Protein backbone atom coordinates (compact mmCIF):
# COMPACT_ATOMS: atom_id res chain seq x y z
CA UNK A 1 0.00 0.00 0.00
CA UNK A 2 1.14 3.54 -0.71
CA UNK A 3 1.78 5.99 2.07
CA UNK A 4 -1.34 8.09 1.76
CA UNK A 5 -0.30 10.96 4.00
CA UNK A 6 0.44 14.04 1.93
CA UNK A 7 3.82 15.75 1.88
CA UNK A 8 2.20 18.90 3.23
CA UNK A 9 0.57 17.13 6.17
CA UNK A 10 3.78 15.27 6.86
CA UNK A 11 5.77 18.49 6.89
CA UNK A 12 3.75 19.94 9.77
CA UNK A 13 5.75 19.35 12.94
CA UNK A 14 3.96 17.48 15.73
CA UNK A 15 2.70 19.56 18.66
CA UNK A 16 5.51 20.49 21.04
CA UNK A 17 3.18 19.98 23.94
CA UNK A 18 1.79 16.50 23.36
CA UNK A 19 4.18 14.90 25.85
CA UNK A 20 3.15 17.37 28.56
CA UNK A 21 -0.48 16.66 27.85
CA UNK A 22 0.10 12.95 28.42
CA UNK A 23 1.87 13.55 31.74
CA UNK A 24 -0.86 15.92 32.96
CA UNK A 25 -3.56 13.38 32.08
CA UNK A 26 -2.14 10.97 34.67
CA UNK A 27 -2.41 13.49 37.53
CA UNK A 28 -5.41 14.29 39.70
CA UNK A 29 -4.56 17.68 41.17
CA UNK A 30 -2.96 19.58 38.32
CA UNK A 31 -3.27 23.35 38.41
CA UNK A 32 -3.23 24.18 34.76
CA UNK A 33 -1.90 27.52 33.62
CA UNK A 34 -1.47 25.88 30.24
CA UNK A 35 -4.90 26.60 28.85
CA UNK A 36 -5.52 29.57 26.60
CA UNK A 37 -9.15 29.85 27.62
CA UNK A 38 -11.14 31.69 30.27
CA UNK A 39 -12.15 29.71 33.36
CA UNK A 40 -15.42 31.63 33.32
CA UNK A 41 -18.57 30.07 31.96
CA UNK A 42 -20.23 32.05 29.16
CA UNK A 43 -22.46 34.78 30.69
CA UNK A 44 -25.80 33.22 31.53
CA UNK A 45 -27.82 35.78 29.58
CA UNK A 46 -25.98 34.61 26.46
CA UNK A 47 -26.51 30.89 27.18
CA UNK A 48 -30.17 31.45 27.93
CA UNK A 49 -30.79 33.16 24.58
CA UNK A 50 -29.12 30.33 22.73
CA UNK A 51 -31.08 27.67 24.64
CA UNK A 52 -34.30 29.50 23.81
CA UNK A 53 -33.39 29.65 20.13
CA UNK A 54 -32.83 25.89 20.06
CA UNK A 55 -36.23 25.40 21.68
CA UNK A 56 -37.70 27.58 18.95
CA UNK A 57 -36.13 25.33 16.33
CA UNK A 58 -33.25 27.52 15.11
CA UNK A 59 -31.10 24.61 14.05
CA UNK A 60 -30.53 25.20 10.33
CA UNK A 61 -27.70 26.50 8.15
CA UNK A 62 -27.34 30.24 8.02
CA UNK A 63 -26.08 32.46 5.21
CA UNK A 64 -22.48 31.44 4.42
CA UNK A 65 -21.13 34.67 5.77
CA UNK A 66 -23.23 34.53 8.93
CA UNK A 67 -26.65 35.85 9.96
CA UNK A 68 -27.34 39.45 8.91
CA UNK A 69 -28.21 40.28 12.54
CA UNK A 70 -24.82 39.15 13.80
CA UNK A 71 -22.87 40.82 10.99
CA UNK A 72 -24.77 44.04 11.61
CA UNK A 73 -24.04 43.85 15.32
CA UNK A 74 -20.35 43.13 14.68
CA UNK A 75 -20.13 46.08 12.29
CA UNK A 76 -21.65 48.47 14.85
CA UNK A 77 -19.55 47.01 17.67
CA UNK A 78 -16.25 47.42 15.79
CA UNK A 79 -17.16 50.97 14.90
CA UNK A 80 -18.10 52.07 18.42
CA UNK A 81 -15.51 50.01 20.27
CA UNK A 82 -12.39 50.20 18.07
CA UNK A 83 -13.25 52.81 15.49
CA UNK A 84 -12.90 50.39 12.56
CA UNK A 85 -15.59 50.54 9.88
CA UNK A 86 -16.54 47.39 8.03
CA UNK A 87 -19.62 46.94 5.89
CA UNK A 88 -21.86 44.24 7.37
CA UNK A 89 -22.80 42.87 3.98
CA UNK A 90 -19.56 42.92 2.00
CA UNK A 91 -16.69 43.06 4.43
CA UNK A 92 -17.50 40.73 7.35
CA UNK A 93 -17.54 36.90 7.43
CA UNK A 94 -18.53 34.98 10.53
CA UNK A 95 -16.26 31.96 10.94
CA UNK A 96 -15.83 28.86 13.10
CA UNK A 97 -13.62 30.63 15.62
CA UNK A 98 -10.65 32.82 14.81
CA UNK A 99 -8.72 29.64 13.98
CA UNK A 100 -10.75 29.22 10.82
CA UNK A 101 -10.62 32.94 10.10
CA UNK A 102 -6.81 32.84 10.21
CA UNK A 103 -6.71 29.85 7.88
CA UNK A 104 -9.03 31.29 5.23
CA UNK A 105 -7.41 34.73 5.47
CA UNK A 106 -4.01 33.19 4.77
CA UNK A 107 -5.31 30.97 1.99
CA UNK A 108 -7.16 33.88 0.38
CA UNK A 109 -3.97 35.88 -0.10
CA UNK A 110 -0.94 33.54 -0.11
CA UNK A 111 0.36 31.93 -3.30
CA UNK A 112 3.00 29.17 -3.35
CA UNK A 113 6.41 30.70 -2.78
CA UNK A 114 5.13 33.88 -1.13
CA UNK A 115 6.99 34.79 2.01
CA UNK A 116 4.78 35.44 5.02
CA UNK A 117 6.22 37.27 8.00
CA UNK A 118 4.93 35.97 11.31
CA UNK A 119 5.54 38.06 14.42
CA UNK A 120 6.60 35.60 17.13
CA UNK A 121 6.33 34.29 19.80
CA UNK A 122 2.84 33.49 18.64
CA UNK A 123 -0.16 31.24 18.62
CA UNK A 124 0.88 27.92 17.11
CA UNK A 125 -1.43 27.76 14.10
CA UNK A 126 -0.23 30.63 11.89
CA UNK A 127 2.94 28.96 10.65
CA UNK A 128 1.31 25.61 9.73
CA UNK A 129 -1.51 27.52 7.98
CA UNK A 130 1.06 29.44 5.92
CA UNK A 131 2.84 26.19 5.03
CA UNK A 132 -0.41 24.46 4.08
CA UNK A 133 -1.14 27.37 1.74
CA UNK A 134 2.27 26.80 0.09
CA UNK A 135 3.72 29.98 1.57
CA UNK A 136 7.08 30.32 3.24
CA UNK A 137 6.78 31.39 6.88
CA UNK A 138 9.44 33.83 8.09
CA UNK A 139 9.63 34.54 11.81
CA UNK A 140 9.95 38.13 12.99
CA UNK A 141 11.11 38.31 16.61
CA UNK A 142 9.36 40.42 19.26
CA UNK A 143 11.78 40.78 22.14
CA UNK A 144 11.44 41.07 25.90
CA UNK A 145 13.46 44.32 25.91
CA UNK A 146 10.81 45.88 23.65
CA UNK A 147 8.01 44.57 25.90
CA UNK A 148 7.36 42.08 23.09
CA UNK A 149 6.26 44.71 20.58
CA UNK A 150 6.93 44.38 16.89
CA UNK A 151 9.55 46.91 15.80
CA UNK A 152 10.24 48.42 12.40
CA UNK A 153 13.89 47.31 12.60
CA UNK A 154 13.02 43.67 13.16
CA UNK A 155 10.49 43.80 10.37
CA UNK A 156 12.67 45.64 7.84
CA UNK A 157 15.49 43.11 8.22
CA UNK A 158 13.29 40.28 7.05
CA UNK A 159 11.47 41.85 4.11
CA UNK A 160 12.55 40.49 0.71
CA UNK A 161 11.12 41.01 -2.79
CA UNK A 162 9.05 37.86 -2.22
CA UNK A 163 7.45 39.06 1.00
CA UNK A 164 3.68 39.52 0.70
CA UNK A 165 2.01 39.28 4.10
CA UNK A 166 2.61 40.04 7.78
CA UNK A 167 0.68 38.08 10.40
CA UNK A 168 0.56 39.75 13.82
CA UNK A 169 -1.43 39.15 16.99
CA UNK A 170 -1.74 41.97 19.52
CA UNK A 171 -2.59 41.88 22.40
CA UNK A 172 -0.34 38.89 22.07
CA UNK A 173 -0.65 35.26 22.97
CA UNK A 174 1.75 34.24 24.62
CA UNK A 175 3.54 37.40 25.78
CA UNK A 176 0.70 39.75 26.72
CA UNK A 177 2.48 42.43 24.66
CA UNK A 178 0.39 45.16 23.06
CA UNK A 179 0.92 47.62 20.19
CA UNK A 180 -0.19 51.21 20.73
CA UNK A 181 -0.97 53.62 17.92
CA UNK A 182 2.61 54.92 17.74
CA UNK A 183 3.94 51.35 17.46
CA UNK A 184 1.69 50.62 14.50
CA UNK A 185 2.46 53.95 12.83
CA UNK A 186 6.13 53.11 13.09
CA UNK A 187 5.65 50.07 10.86
CA UNK A 188 2.80 51.35 8.66
CA UNK A 189 5.24 53.00 6.22
CA UNK A 190 7.14 49.75 5.79
CA UNK A 191 3.95 47.89 4.98
CA UNK A 192 2.95 50.52 2.43
CA UNK A 193 6.42 50.98 0.89
CA UNK A 194 6.84 47.24 0.36
CA UNK A 195 3.20 46.80 -0.64
CA UNK A 196 2.50 44.21 2.07
CA UNK A 197 -0.78 42.96 3.48
CA UNK A 198 -1.39 42.77 7.23
CA UNK A 199 -3.37 39.98 8.88
CA UNK A 200 -4.12 41.33 12.34
CA UNK A 201 -5.50 38.80 14.83
CA UNK A 202 -7.18 40.90 17.51
CA UNK A 203 -9.00 38.21 19.47
CA UNK A 204 -7.65 39.66 22.74
CA UNK A 205 -8.66 43.25 21.85
CA UNK A 206 -11.10 43.48 24.76
CA UNK A 207 -8.48 42.31 27.22
CA UNK A 208 -6.28 45.36 27.64
CA UNK A 209 -5.49 46.75 31.06
CA UNK A 210 -3.51 49.95 30.64
CA UNK A 211 -5.06 51.97 27.85
CA UNK A 212 -7.44 50.62 25.24
CA UNK A 213 -6.80 48.50 22.18
CA UNK A 214 -5.58 50.11 18.97
CA UNK A 215 -6.72 48.46 15.77
CA UNK A 216 -4.26 49.00 12.88
CA UNK A 217 -7.06 49.10 10.28
CA UNK A 218 -7.99 52.52 11.68
CA UNK A 219 -4.86 53.92 10.03
CA UNK A 220 -6.32 55.00 6.65
CA UNK A 221 -3.36 53.86 4.54
CA UNK A 222 -3.49 50.43 6.20
CA UNK A 223 -7.23 49.79 5.92
CA UNK A 224 -7.12 48.62 2.32
CA UNK A 225 -4.21 46.27 3.10
CA UNK A 226 -5.45 44.82 6.39
CA UNK A 227 -7.47 41.75 7.27
CA UNK A 228 -8.79 42.11 10.82
CA UNK A 229 -9.60 38.92 12.72
CA UNK A 230 -11.55 38.84 15.94
CA UNK A 231 -13.93 36.60 17.84
CA UNK A 232 -15.95 35.93 20.95
CA UNK A 233 -13.92 33.21 22.66
CA UNK A 234 -11.71 35.28 24.92
CA UNK A 235 -13.70 38.45 25.60
CA UNK A 236 -17.02 36.74 26.30
CA UNK A 237 -15.71 33.39 27.60
CA UNK A 238 -17.19 31.59 24.59
CA UNK A 239 -14.38 29.25 23.46
CA UNK A 240 -16.58 26.21 22.90
CA UNK A 241 -19.11 28.07 20.75
CA UNK A 242 -16.54 28.53 17.97
CA UNK A 243 -17.49 31.97 16.70
CA UNK A 244 -14.95 34.30 15.17
CA UNK A 245 -14.99 36.72 12.28
CA UNK A 246 -12.89 38.03 9.46
CA UNK A 247 -13.12 41.62 8.27
CA UNK A 248 -11.45 42.81 5.09
CA UNK A 249 -11.94 45.09 2.11
CA UNK A 250 -14.69 43.63 -0.12
CA UNK A 251 -12.47 41.99 -2.74
CA UNK A 252 -10.39 40.08 -0.19
CA UNK A 253 -13.47 39.20 1.85
CA UNK A 254 -15.11 37.77 -1.27
CA UNK A 255 -12.07 35.55 -1.88
CA UNK A 256 -12.05 34.36 1.74
CA UNK A 257 -15.80 33.70 1.58
CA UNK A 258 -15.31 31.30 -1.33
CA UNK A 259 -12.96 29.21 0.80
CA UNK A 260 -15.17 29.49 3.89
CA UNK A 261 -18.29 28.31 2.09
CA UNK A 262 -16.56 25.20 0.80
CA UNK A 263 -14.72 24.21 3.99
CA UNK A 264 -17.18 25.28 6.70
CA UNK A 265 -20.40 26.29 4.92
CA UNK A 266 -21.33 28.45 7.88
CA UNK A 267 -20.53 28.88 11.55
CA UNK A 268 -22.91 27.03 13.93
CA UNK A 269 -26.22 28.85 14.21
CA UNK A 270 -26.51 28.42 18.00
CA UNK A 271 -23.15 30.07 18.39
CA UNK A 272 -24.13 32.91 16.08
CA UNK A 273 -27.26 33.58 18.10
CA UNK A 274 -25.26 33.48 21.31
CA UNK A 275 -22.66 35.84 19.85
CA UNK A 276 -25.36 38.29 18.83
CA UNK A 277 -26.70 38.25 22.39
CA UNK A 278 -23.19 38.74 23.75
CA UNK A 279 -22.88 41.97 21.77
CA UNK A 280 -26.42 43.03 22.61
CA UNK A 281 -26.44 42.48 26.37
CA UNK A 282 -23.13 40.93 27.43
CA UNK A 283 -21.05 44.06 27.88
CA UNK A 284 -21.39 44.40 31.66
CA UNK A 285 -20.37 40.79 32.27
CA UNK A 286 -17.50 41.11 29.84
CA UNK A 287 -16.29 44.21 31.66
CA UNK A 288 -16.52 42.38 34.99
CA UNK A 289 -14.37 39.54 33.60
CA UNK A 290 -11.79 42.00 32.27
CA UNK A 291 -11.59 43.66 35.70
CA UNK A 292 -11.05 40.25 37.28
CA UNK A 293 -8.27 39.37 34.78
CA UNK A 294 -6.52 42.58 35.70
CA UNK A 295 -6.61 41.65 39.42
CA UNK A 296 -5.27 38.20 38.58
CA UNK A 297 -2.52 39.68 36.46
CA UNK A 298 -1.46 41.97 39.29
CA UNK A 299 -1.44 39.10 41.78
CA UNK A 300 0.36 36.61 39.56
CA UNK A 301 2.99 38.86 37.99
CA UNK A 302 3.87 40.28 41.41
CA UNK A 303 4.21 36.72 42.71
CA UNK A 304 6.43 35.62 39.81
CA UNK A 305 8.77 38.56 40.24
CA UNK A 306 8.97 37.91 43.99
CA UNK A 307 9.97 34.32 43.19
CA UNK A 308 12.78 35.66 40.99
CA UNK A 309 11.15 34.62 37.71
CA UNK A 310 11.42 38.00 36.07
CA UNK A 311 8.32 38.96 34.19
CA UNK A 312 7.31 42.18 32.43
CA UNK A 313 3.83 43.41 33.27
CA UNK A 314 1.67 42.23 30.36
CA UNK A 315 -0.67 44.99 29.20
CA UNK A 316 -3.13 42.70 27.44
CA UNK A 317 -4.47 39.15 26.92
CA UNK A 318 -4.33 36.80 29.93
CA UNK A 319 -0.81 35.45 29.79
CA UNK A 320 2.26 36.09 31.88
CA UNK A 321 5.53 35.29 30.13
CA UNK A 322 8.24 35.02 32.79
CA UNK A 323 11.86 34.21 32.08
CA UNK A 324 13.43 31.11 33.64
CA UNK A 325 16.95 32.27 32.80
CA UNK A 326 17.81 32.77 36.49
CA UNK A 327 17.31 29.05 37.17
CA UNK A 328 19.83 27.86 34.61
CA UNK A 329 17.23 25.49 33.18
CA UNK A 330 15.74 25.56 29.69
CA UNK A 331 12.09 26.44 29.45
CA UNK A 332 11.20 22.86 28.47
CA UNK A 333 13.20 21.33 31.33
CA UNK A 334 11.63 23.75 33.78
CA UNK A 335 8.08 23.18 32.53
CA UNK A 336 8.45 19.42 32.55
CA UNK A 337 10.01 19.26 36.03
CA UNK A 338 7.43 21.69 37.41
CA UNK A 339 4.64 19.52 36.06
CA UNK A 340 6.15 16.26 37.31
CA UNK A 341 7.13 17.49 40.76
CA UNK A 342 4.57 20.14 41.64
CA UNK A 343 1.73 19.37 39.23
CA UNK A 344 1.61 22.87 37.77
CA UNK A 345 1.11 22.94 34.01
CA UNK A 346 2.66 25.75 31.97
CA UNK A 347 3.67 25.95 28.30
CA UNK A 348 7.38 26.22 27.48
CA UNK A 349 7.92 29.39 25.46
CA UNK A 350 10.15 27.71 22.88
CA UNK A 351 7.06 25.91 21.54
CA UNK A 352 5.67 29.32 20.56
CA UNK A 353 8.63 30.60 18.54
CA UNK A 354 12.38 31.17 18.76
CA UNK A 355 11.91 34.39 20.75
CA UNK A 356 9.99 32.41 23.36
CA UNK A 357 13.07 30.43 24.33
CA UNK A 358 13.79 30.74 28.05
CA UNK A 359 10.24 31.80 28.90
CA UNK A 360 7.08 30.13 30.17
CA UNK A 361 3.57 30.90 29.04
CA UNK A 362 1.33 30.98 32.11
CA UNK A 363 -2.33 31.70 31.50
CA UNK A 364 -3.76 33.54 34.48
CA UNK A 365 -7.32 32.75 33.37
CA UNK A 366 -7.83 30.68 36.53
CA UNK A 367 -9.16 31.71 39.95
CA UNK A 368 -7.03 33.83 42.26
CA UNK A 369 -6.97 30.95 44.74
CA UNK A 370 -5.53 28.67 42.07
CA UNK A 371 -2.98 31.32 41.11
CA UNK A 372 -1.86 31.58 44.74
CA UNK A 373 -1.58 27.83 45.00
CA UNK A 374 0.36 27.71 41.72
CA UNK A 375 2.75 30.40 42.99
CA UNK A 376 3.25 28.52 46.23
CA UNK A 377 4.03 25.30 44.36
CA UNK A 378 6.40 27.16 42.03
CA UNK A 379 8.12 28.56 45.13
CA UNK A 380 8.54 25.06 46.54
CA UNK A 381 9.88 23.89 43.21
CA UNK A 382 12.40 26.72 42.97
CA UNK A 383 13.63 25.94 46.50
CA UNK A 384 14.10 22.29 45.52
CA UNK A 385 16.35 23.10 42.55
CA UNK A 386 18.60 25.58 44.36
Amino acid at each position, binding site marked *: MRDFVSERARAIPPSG*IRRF*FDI*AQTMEDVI*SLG*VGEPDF*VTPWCVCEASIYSIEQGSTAYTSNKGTPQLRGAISRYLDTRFNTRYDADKEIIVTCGVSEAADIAIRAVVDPGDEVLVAEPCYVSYIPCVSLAGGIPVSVPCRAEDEFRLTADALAERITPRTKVLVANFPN*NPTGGVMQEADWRAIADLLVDHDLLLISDEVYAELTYDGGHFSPATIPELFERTITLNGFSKAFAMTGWRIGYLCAPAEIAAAALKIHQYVALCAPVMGQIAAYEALRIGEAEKDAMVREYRLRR*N*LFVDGLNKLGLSCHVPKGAFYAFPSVESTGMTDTEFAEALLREQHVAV*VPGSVLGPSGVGHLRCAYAVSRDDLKEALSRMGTFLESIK
Partner: protein
Amino acid sequence: MDEKDRILLHLLEENCRTPVSELAVLAEVSEEDVKDRISRLEAAGAIRRYSAVVDWERAGDGKVTAVIELKVSPERDFGYDRIAERLTRFPQVRSLRLMTGIYDLQLLVAGPSMHEIARFVSEQIAPMNRIRETATHIIMKTYKENGTTFAEREEVEHLPYSF
Protein backbone atom coordinates in the same frame (compact mmCIF):
# COMPACT_ATOMS: atom_id res chain seq x y z
CA MET B 1 -14.77 57.62 45.80
CA ASP B 2 -12.47 56.76 42.91
CA GLU B 3 -11.70 53.63 40.89
CA LYS B 4 -9.20 52.31 43.45
CA ASP B 5 -11.75 52.69 46.27
CA ARG B 6 -14.25 50.83 44.15
CA ILE B 7 -11.80 47.97 43.58
CA LEU B 8 -11.03 47.78 47.30
CA LEU B 9 -14.73 47.72 48.20
CA HIS B 10 -15.38 44.91 45.74
CA LEU B 11 -12.44 42.92 47.09
CA LEU B 12 -13.51 43.41 50.70
CA GLU B 13 -17.10 42.57 49.89
CA GLU B 14 -15.87 39.36 48.31
CA ASN B 15 -13.54 38.51 51.21
CA CYS B 16 -13.05 40.98 54.03
CA ARG B 17 -10.16 38.91 55.39
CA THR B 18 -7.91 39.58 52.40
CA PRO B 19 -4.60 40.85 53.83
CA VAL B 20 -3.63 44.47 53.19
CA SER B 21 -0.49 43.35 51.35
CA GLU B 22 -2.60 41.42 48.86
CA LEU B 23 -5.14 44.23 48.48
CA ALA B 24 -2.26 46.54 47.65
CA VAL B 25 -0.95 44.28 44.88
CA LEU B 26 -4.40 43.68 43.43
CA ALA B 27 -5.42 47.33 43.40
CA GLU B 28 -1.99 48.56 42.27
CA VAL B 29 -1.52 50.95 45.23
CA SER B 30 0.78 50.97 48.28
CA GLU B 31 -0.10 49.24 51.55
CA GLU B 32 -0.22 52.61 53.33
CA ASP B 33 -2.65 53.86 50.73
CA VAL B 34 -4.85 50.78 51.23
CA LYS B 35 -5.00 51.41 54.99
CA ASP B 36 -5.84 55.10 54.49
CA ARG B 37 -8.52 54.35 51.98
CA ILE B 38 -10.15 51.68 54.15
CA SER B 39 -10.15 54.02 57.17
CA ARG B 40 -11.79 56.69 55.08
CA LEU B 41 -14.41 54.31 53.72
CA GLU B 42 -15.14 53.06 57.23
CA ALA B 43 -15.44 56.59 58.58
CA ALA B 44 -17.74 57.58 55.75
CA GLY B 45 -19.98 54.58 56.47
CA ALA B 46 -19.40 53.06 53.03
CA ILE B 47 -18.13 50.00 54.89
CA ARG B 48 -20.76 49.23 57.53
CA ARG B 49 -19.20 46.15 59.07
CA TYR B 50 -17.27 42.97 58.29
CA SER B 51 -19.25 39.76 58.43
CA ALA B 52 -19.39 36.16 57.24
CA VAL B 53 -22.03 34.69 54.96
CA VAL B 54 -23.22 31.76 57.07
CA ASP B 55 -25.12 28.80 55.74
CA TRP B 56 -26.89 27.98 59.01
CA GLU B 57 -28.40 24.84 57.53
CA ARG B 58 -24.90 23.51 56.86
CA ALA B 59 -23.65 24.69 60.20
CA GLY B 60 -26.15 22.29 61.74
CA ASP B 61 -28.08 25.07 63.41
CA GLY B 62 -30.87 25.60 60.98
CA LYS B 63 -33.06 28.57 61.78
CA VAL B 64 -36.43 29.27 60.36
CA THR B 65 -36.51 32.36 58.23
CA ALA B 66 -39.57 34.11 56.90
CA VAL B 67 -40.37 37.00 54.64
CA ILE B 68 -43.09 39.08 56.26
CA GLU B 69 -44.97 41.73 54.35
CA LEU B 70 -46.84 44.53 56.05
CA LYS B 71 -49.46 46.96 54.90
CA VAL B 72 -48.90 50.13 56.87
CA SER B 73 -50.82 53.39 57.13
CA PRO B 74 -48.22 56.13 56.78
CA GLU B 75 -48.13 58.97 59.30
CA ARG B 76 -48.43 62.63 58.44
CA ASP B 77 -44.95 64.24 58.45
CA PHE B 78 -43.17 60.93 59.01
CA GLY B 79 -44.45 58.59 56.30
CA TYR B 80 -43.19 55.08 57.07
CA ASP B 81 -40.02 56.11 58.86
CA ARG B 82 -41.22 56.04 62.47
CA ILE B 83 -42.88 52.65 62.26
CA ALA B 84 -39.86 51.31 60.36
CA GLU B 85 -37.57 52.64 63.05
CA ARG B 86 -39.54 50.77 65.70
CA LEU B 87 -39.43 47.57 63.70
CA THR B 88 -35.65 47.72 63.23
CA ARG B 89 -35.24 47.53 67.02
CA PHE B 90 -36.41 43.91 67.13
CA PRO B 91 -33.36 41.64 66.94
CA GLN B 92 -35.48 39.05 65.11
CA VAL B 93 -35.79 41.45 62.16
CA ARG B 94 -32.75 40.75 59.97
CA SER B 95 -33.61 43.16 57.20
CA LEU B 96 -36.32 45.68 56.53
CA ARG B 97 -37.22 47.45 53.33
CA LEU B 98 -39.88 49.81 52.02
CA MET B 99 -41.28 48.37 48.81
CA THR B 100 -43.53 49.31 45.92
CA GLY B 101 -46.49 47.02 45.30
CA ILE B 102 -49.41 45.76 47.35
CA TYR B 103 -47.51 45.71 50.62
CA ASP B 104 -45.39 48.51 52.02
CA LEU B 105 -42.73 47.03 54.25
CA GLN B 106 -40.89 43.79 53.79
CA LEU B 107 -39.11 42.14 56.72
CA LEU B 108 -36.78 39.21 56.83
CA VAL B 109 -37.27 37.54 60.18
CA ALA B 110 -35.26 34.67 61.64
CA GLY B 111 -36.22 32.54 64.62
CA PRO B 112 -35.49 29.17 66.19
CA SER B 113 -38.79 27.63 65.05
CA MET B 114 -41.88 28.20 62.98
CA HIS B 115 -43.82 28.51 66.21
CA GLU B 116 -41.54 31.29 67.44
CA ILE B 117 -41.95 33.24 64.23
CA ALA B 118 -45.72 32.87 64.32
CA ARG B 119 -45.73 34.10 67.89
CA PHE B 120 -43.47 37.04 67.03
CA VAL B 121 -45.68 38.14 64.15
CA SER B 122 -49.00 37.74 65.91
CA GLU B 123 -47.95 39.13 69.27
CA GLN B 124 -45.33 41.74 68.44
CA ILE B 125 -45.81 42.92 64.86
CA ALA B 126 -49.48 42.63 63.97
CA PRO B 127 -50.81 44.54 66.98
CA MET B 128 -48.58 47.56 66.39
CA ASN B 129 -50.31 50.79 65.58
CA ARG B 130 -50.79 51.57 61.89
CA ILE B 131 -50.12 48.02 60.73
CA ARG B 132 -53.19 47.02 58.78
CA GLU B 133 -52.33 43.65 57.38
CA THR B 134 -49.53 41.05 57.51
CA ALA B 135 -48.53 38.19 55.22
CA THR B 136 -45.98 35.63 56.38
CA HIS B 137 -43.99 33.50 53.92
CA ILE B 138 -41.75 30.82 55.38
CA ILE B 139 -38.51 30.37 53.44
CA MET B 140 -38.21 26.73 52.41
CA LYS B 141 -34.74 26.66 50.89
CA THR B 142 -32.05 29.21 50.11
CA TYR B 143 -30.33 28.80 46.76
CA LYS B 144 -28.35 32.01 46.67
CA GLU B 145 -27.55 34.57 49.35
CA ASN B 146 -25.74 37.88 48.87
CA GLY B 147 -24.39 36.73 45.53
CA THR B 148 -23.17 33.40 46.90
CA THR B 149 -24.68 30.25 45.42
CA PHE B 150 -25.21 27.56 48.06
CA ALA B 151 -25.81 24.55 45.84
CA GLU B 152 -22.64 22.97 44.52
CA ARG B 153 -22.24 22.59 40.81
CA GLU B 154 -19.98 20.16 39.10
CA GLU B 155 -16.89 21.86 37.74
CA VAL B 156 -16.69 21.97 33.98
CA GLU B 157 -13.64 20.15 32.69
CA HIS B 158 -11.05 22.16 30.85
CA LEU B 159 -8.23 20.62 28.86
CA PRO B 160 -4.90 20.89 30.71
CA TYR B 161 -3.29 22.49 27.66
CA SER B 162 -4.48 24.54 24.73
CA PHE B 163 -3.04 27.33 22.69
